[in-house]
């Protein structure tokens, strides 16, 4: 494959990219996830940790840097994508940042995430901002186009300037236990990505059990995923905390065994600042503060930004804010 090298952004200095590992089916078979126990932990994480005042402000500002600002709708147009990119360049009103004393922080989202068709538009709109463009490029959201087609789509996206590729796995491979098939596909996609980072979308809402989610996570990581991601946003069930726990714990186990740090991206349904902070607490508790960096954690979201901005304004002024006061995403 002829792919040009893509420059990676700086915060991940010293970060070793996942080189991929042989498929270890014994390991896959050892995976156990107890749903009730995960639900119990998930339901208390928000109650066990909370941040207030300036801590809350700092965490919310951090949350913005962890967003993959996303538009993935069938009616997207270049104009819509350009508006999104403009918001990405300027995610929080200056007066709010100033009031919080946070002007110097370089607050910008982790990436802008679009369909392949809009990669060029986004790259152009974000030029000079340092914000990478992520593309969903494997017959998103179903992932059922011929493999060659999907691989060609990845290559095309990378060629158009995408630095991150969000691929979708074939859910059927998980449901039928075809781990080898899944591994081979993800490995091929990873190769197609070249230097662009690969996020593997599991479509967790369609994988039936948390054990399946965990096994699929492991197979994707073994195949070379840089990120594992929950959902396309198009399934009936989007990201939630119990699924996140299952995936995050697989990331932890993978790190324990290989020393490689894999990123996590919950996507879909995370629209409030409070939810975002709970996810961050979960990451901090289960994986450590280190994981709260854009190269290891992203939210797949769009309306989340508005709520974060609104809450930041509240922190800055002491008055509750309204959504229409924030420039729309």
């Amino acid at each position, binding site marked *: 494959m002829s792919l040009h090298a893509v420059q990676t952004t700086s915060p991940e200095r010293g970060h070793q990219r996942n080189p991929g590992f042989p498929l270890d089916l014994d390991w896959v078979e050892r995976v*156990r*996830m*107890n*749903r*009730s*126990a*995960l*639900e*119990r*932990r998930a339901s*208390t994480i928000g*109650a*066990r*940790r*909370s*941040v*207030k*005042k*300036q*801590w809350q*402000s*700092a*965490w919310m*500002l*951090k949350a913005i840097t962890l967003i993959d600002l996303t538009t993935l709708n069938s009616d997207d147009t270049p104009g819509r994508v350009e508006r999104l990119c403009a918001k990405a360049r300027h995610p929080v009103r200056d007066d709010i940042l100033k009031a*919080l*004393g*946070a002007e*110097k*922080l370089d607050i910008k989202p982790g990436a802008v995430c679009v369909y392949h068709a809009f990669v060029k538009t986004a790259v152009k709109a974000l030029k000079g901002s340092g914000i990478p463009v992520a593309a969903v490029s494997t017959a998103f959201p179903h992932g059922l186009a011929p493999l060659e087609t999907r691989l060609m789509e990845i290559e095309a996206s990378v060629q158009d300037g995408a630095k991150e590729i969000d691929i979708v796995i074939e859910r059927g491979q998980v449901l039928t236990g075809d781990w080898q098939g899944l591994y081979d596909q993800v490995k091929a996609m990873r190769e197609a990505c070249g230097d662009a980072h690969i996020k593997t979308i599991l479509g967790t809402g369609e994988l*039936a*059990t948390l054990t399946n989610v965990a096994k699929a996570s492991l197979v994707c990581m073994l195949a070379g995923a840089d990120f594992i991601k929950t959902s396309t946003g198009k399934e009936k069930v989007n990201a939630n905390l119990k699924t996140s726990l299952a995936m995050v*714990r697989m990331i*932890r186990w993978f790190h*324990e065994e290989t020393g490689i740090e894999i990123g996590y991206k919950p996507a879909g349904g995370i629209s409030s600042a409070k939810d975002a902070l709970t996810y*961050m607490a979960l990451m*901090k*508790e289960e994986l450590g*503060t280190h994981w*709260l960096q854009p190269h290891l954690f992203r939210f797949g979201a769009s309306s989340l930004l508005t709520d974060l901005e609104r809450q930041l304004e509240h922190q800055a002024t002491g008055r509750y804010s309204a959504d229409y006061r924030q420039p729309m995403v």
Partner: protein
Amino acid sequence: MNEITNIFESLDYGPAPEAAAPAEVWLDLHGRKFGQFIGGKWTKPGKTFASINPANEKELARITDGTRADVDKAVKAARAALPGWQALSGFERAKYLYAIARQISKDSRLFAVLESIDNGKPIRESRDADIPLVIRHFYHHAGWAQHLERELPDMVPYGVCGQIIPWNFPLLMLAWKIAPALAAGNTVVLKPAEFTSLTALLFAEVCEKVGLPAGVVNIITGQGETGAALVDHPDVDKIAFTGSTEVGKIIRRATAGSGKGLSLELGGKSPYIVFEDADIDSAIEGLVDAIWFNQGQVCCAGSRLLVQESIEDKFLKRLRARMDKLRVGDPLDKAVDIGALVDPIQVQRIRSLLATGEKEGMVKYEAKGALPPTGCYLKPTLITGVSPSHTLVQEEIFGPVLVSMSFRTPEEAVALANNTVYGLASTVWTENINLALDIAPQIKAGVVWVNCSNQFDAAVGFGGYKESGFGREGGKEGMRVYMKPAFEKKLKPAAPVKTAANIDTYETDGIDHTAKMYIGGKQARGDSGYARTVIAPDGTAVGEVSDGNRKDVRNAVEAARKALGWANTTAHLRAQILYFLGENLDYRRAEFADRIRAMTGATAAAAKKEVDASIERLFAFAGWADKFDGAVHNAPLRAIAAAMIEPIGVIGIAAPDENPLLAPIAMLAPAVAMGNTTVLIPSERHPLAMTDLYQVIETSDVPGGVINIVTGDQPSLARVLTEHDGVDALWYVGDVDHSAEMERQSTGNLKQTWTTRGLDFDWFDKDNLEGRFFLDRATQVKNVWVPYGA
């Protein structure tokens, strides 16, 4: 605001304080000094002691140290309130319990904050665990008040209940005590622990607010002496205690022979078993619930980790990493996992235990992270390098200290789990349902949590085996603890036994008819080499039996313990054997009737009636064997909470002289039907009916050791049984003094006792003795929680 940019990098949590003000205002409103709540009125504070906030060791309020006179006044108030309270319909009582639940709901944050500043527990726990469980308990028991007569027929409330609760879950333990007591129609005098009286006092105000009739609930604050006064008070009908095993034993001795009902919820050293096929990370998170909940000050804390050797290293490594994430600090900080221990004295006690552990060579790991400079704090601690012979493995630490050992096989896990004097709770982690359901019945504990830990609910009974106490709290099994069979109240003292001829012991002289002991399925010669003559009312000798001694009892108990596998036979098999026993006795009914006549001088008709009744009783309990079964409770959780009926173990039975065949069979049959093994001391004066029964037992396929019979001096042999730590329960039929003695001496292993205290039980009474009365006493309830979900 440079701070934000710093936090942006560090992503620290920062403080998240819950305001203490409303609780402080409440304390100020009372001048930070409290009297007692007696008969619906507040007394003036008397001599007081300080209640401190263990987070900063500052005084919160002064609490009245209750005197004997205070206790007497409170018991009188409870007594006076009793008729009115019992005259109310179940619905009326339900309305009060419902109102209490609603009122606590309305004041829930005040209760939570007050609990946290008084006890030191994190606000997250008092807010999300203690108080919601309290409210749930009153709701649940409102229902029991209304359905009692239907669901527990022929049971009546005890009357005045004295309740003594610990400091670890102050308001929750109050709810566990008061809700069922009131639902059942009792009135109560409750003494909170001296460290934590405040929420009980706030609860008294709830009683006032909802208009609970005066005297139904009385709150007496004080220290150990106050509790002792309540235990000793002659007009208290029942004592319920939650606390240490040491104090539980003192209470058992103090109430011996008094006829007071008694339920004890005591200490524990609960095993936490992790098999290699568990969801390891979830099992580690479960440990946080098990041992780092409430600073580890939980009687059922999973404090003994047993992890399969194949995963031990990985498990402990991940556990230590998890421990490092626990945040210890201000209980009112919403983002704190572990608050303050209740009092400096507890911190000292645990430090001293840890010092012993160090001397014994333990390896200690303390979680990273700093402690607040002042206050009663300890770091979460993991102890490795220990075995069952180490002090820290045997003793209840009651703090945030976990001891860890490994096991190789399921069998070894069970052996280690049961290698303790306690039996309160246990936890089992495995994804294999076959393994989980194999292990759960084998653990001698009142609660088994599968793939979870420290789950509680008002609908599910909670309570211990062994030295963790007896009685249950929660569920239908918990309601039974606050009621007693109506017929017991009508029993009259037994007529003094006619002492006919003097029974001397003398050396054997080779008479062939000397009946031997029956031990381990064999006729065994007595150890003493002495025999006793059995004399008929007319003074003639009708035979001889061995004069049993300590060693015979010891041998019998050993045989009974070896036969404990009887519990694992199917109920159908036990039924068959009891039916067969009845059938074989029936075959020899004439012979047994003649023997009864010869020994007791009974009429032919009376003797025949006794034999017939004995056969009928065997059939009755054969019929019960596979029908007295458990329940599945409705906990508000996606789980099966199965209340399993299990035998107690070895039951010692001392039979009376009356009805020398029927009385022992009336007790043996339920004990054996439920899977217990037994050591019987038959009638001292008329033992031959039971020694004759050996042959019937032998021909009826009763496995050796299930029924053991030792003849001789009834009270002295019973004393050996009650003092034997291998006997799990003692049923004693005899006079007041001996009954008291048996109860007093039972505390070595805190065995469950039932004594007749000289009351005249009618052994022919089918209505009352052919059913639950003995079945309840022959069994204990184990609740197994199994959450599920694909």
